[in-house]
């Protein structure tokens, strides 16, 4: 019995030693080897984040642990110091964050677009054309298209989860001071983009979706792009260096490296060459993209 207990103690000691030595140690020159990034779901779901962080680690040896939460939550992480870098797409919230003094620096990372997808519904198209004609402008209007969906009594499936996409949907509904009113065809799933898109496809309904997720899923879906091109559908991403760790903390130096890399030539190269189903969902600040998918 004693020899068995000794063997067990030895095994336990070996295991604990192994566990302890698995952690990365800070090199003598300062700067952490692992930093935390809080971001939202769309960059991650399309696969862009994975590629970016992989290339970043190859270039700098710094591992980035990314967690996807809602925009509000990601910014809170930055404020509390639970994240070393924050990457979101909510300009108003980002500006408020910086104004409140929580961030050291904010940079434009990239931008993408939303599109409205749905079934072929002539009643909706007709109403939309009439609205445009009445307004005297031929420029695509996502807000007018959503209103056409509602007025024609068609079905619309919303994220309903306070996400960036959901907030944009509400912005479109309330554009020009209009009030947001649900109608009998309005559904709120409370789920992520993937499930929401699948549900909309099942129900032959309209929904607002970011181009990246759309490109990834469109092969399996019956829906088609119905409204695109409105500048109101543009969605800029900002990358923020929060102040919480202090400007000279060890993690801050590595975090700054990430911010500089993403907005530098290497990061921009990755974004520029990233495609889903043959098309680019993400664009660099100042780029003029091709017409919608």
């Amino acid at each position, binding site marked *: 019995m004693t020899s068995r207990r000794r063997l067990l103690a030895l095994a336990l000691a070996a295991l604990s030693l192994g566990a302890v030595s698995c952690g990365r140690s800070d090199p003598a020159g300062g700067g952490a080897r692992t930093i935390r990034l809080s971001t939202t779901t769309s960059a991650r779901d399309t696969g862009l984040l994975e590629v970016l962080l992989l290339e970043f680690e190859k270039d700098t040896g710094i591992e980035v642990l990314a967690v996807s*939460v809602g925009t509000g*939550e990601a910014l809170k992480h930055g404020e509390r110091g639970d994240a070393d870098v924050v990457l979101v797409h909510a300009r108003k919230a980002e500006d408020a964050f910086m104004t409140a003094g929580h961030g050291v620096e904010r940079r434009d990372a990239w931008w993408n677009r939303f599109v409205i997808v749905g079934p072929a519904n002539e009643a909706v198209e007709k109403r939309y054309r009439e609205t445009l004609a009445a307004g005297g402008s031929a420029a695509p209007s996502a807000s007018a298209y959503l209103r056409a969906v509602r007025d024609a009594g068609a079905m619309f499936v919303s994220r309903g*989860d*306070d996400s960036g996409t959901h907030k944009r949907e509400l912005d479109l509904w309330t554009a020009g001071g209009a009030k947001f009113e649900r109608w009998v065809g309005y*559904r709120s799933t*409370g*789920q992520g983009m993937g499930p929401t898109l699948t549900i909309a496809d099942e*129900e032959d309904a309209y929904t607002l979706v970011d181009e990246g997720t759309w490109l990834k899923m469109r092969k399996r879906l019956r829906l088609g792009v119905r409204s695109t091109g409105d500048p109101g559908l543009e969605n800029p991403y900002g990358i923020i260096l929060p102040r919480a760790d202090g400007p000279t903390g060890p993690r801050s130096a590595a975090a700054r490296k990430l911010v500089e890399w993403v907005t530098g030539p290497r990061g921009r190269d990755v974004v520029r060459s990233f495609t889903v189903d043959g098309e680019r969902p993400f664009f660099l600040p100042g780029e003029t993209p091709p017409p919608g998918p």
Partner: protein
Amino acid sequence: MDIFADGAREAWALLTRGDAVTWHAIWLSLWTSVLSVMLAAPFAVPLGAWIGLSKPRSQYTWVFLFRLGVGVPTVALGLFLYGLFSRRGPFGDLGFLFTPQAIVIGEVLLAFPILASLSHAAAANLDPRVLETVRTHGGGRLLAVRLMVSETRAALVAAFLLAFGRCLTELGVAIIVGGGYELRTRTLPAQVSLEISKGEFGKAAAACLVLVVLAFGAVIVAWFLGQERKR
């Protein structure tokens, strides 16, 4: 730890404020579970009871099938029904997907084996003289079942409450074929799951609290009724 304090506070606020989403989830969970048990019972109880009373050669095949039904993962059932009711599926045109009716269909299938196997157990343990009495009086299956039901009432009520609990707390069917539509098909378990993925732990804990109270309540009532039988 503050998740629980926040949750309790949020629960109180949501309930007293009459929050539509929370109250709808409570109402939906309750009526679908009750209806599902009520729909399954007239078929499951007589079936289980008769098998337990008459003890045919196929008795243990039946018991085995009932037990398989009790053990089915709710997500497997949800996925199966999704395949049936999806647009591409054989019953897609019936328009059941993402409706409360689909949730009820799934929950009936969950309740049935529970009611059948517990009815069987109650009947099988019944004094054989009961069946003999029925036979000597020229009574048929129906009378035997009715007599069995009155003799084992407490055990059957407990079975009903357990089936109710299974329907109330399941997530797989509700989310997969229900779709989790706010104010339409979002049951309490679905509400918990969705609020957590939104990072709203307070709201999730609130829905969870109500769910636990209802679920434990059913267990407690079933327990006391069971004690009554032992007397």
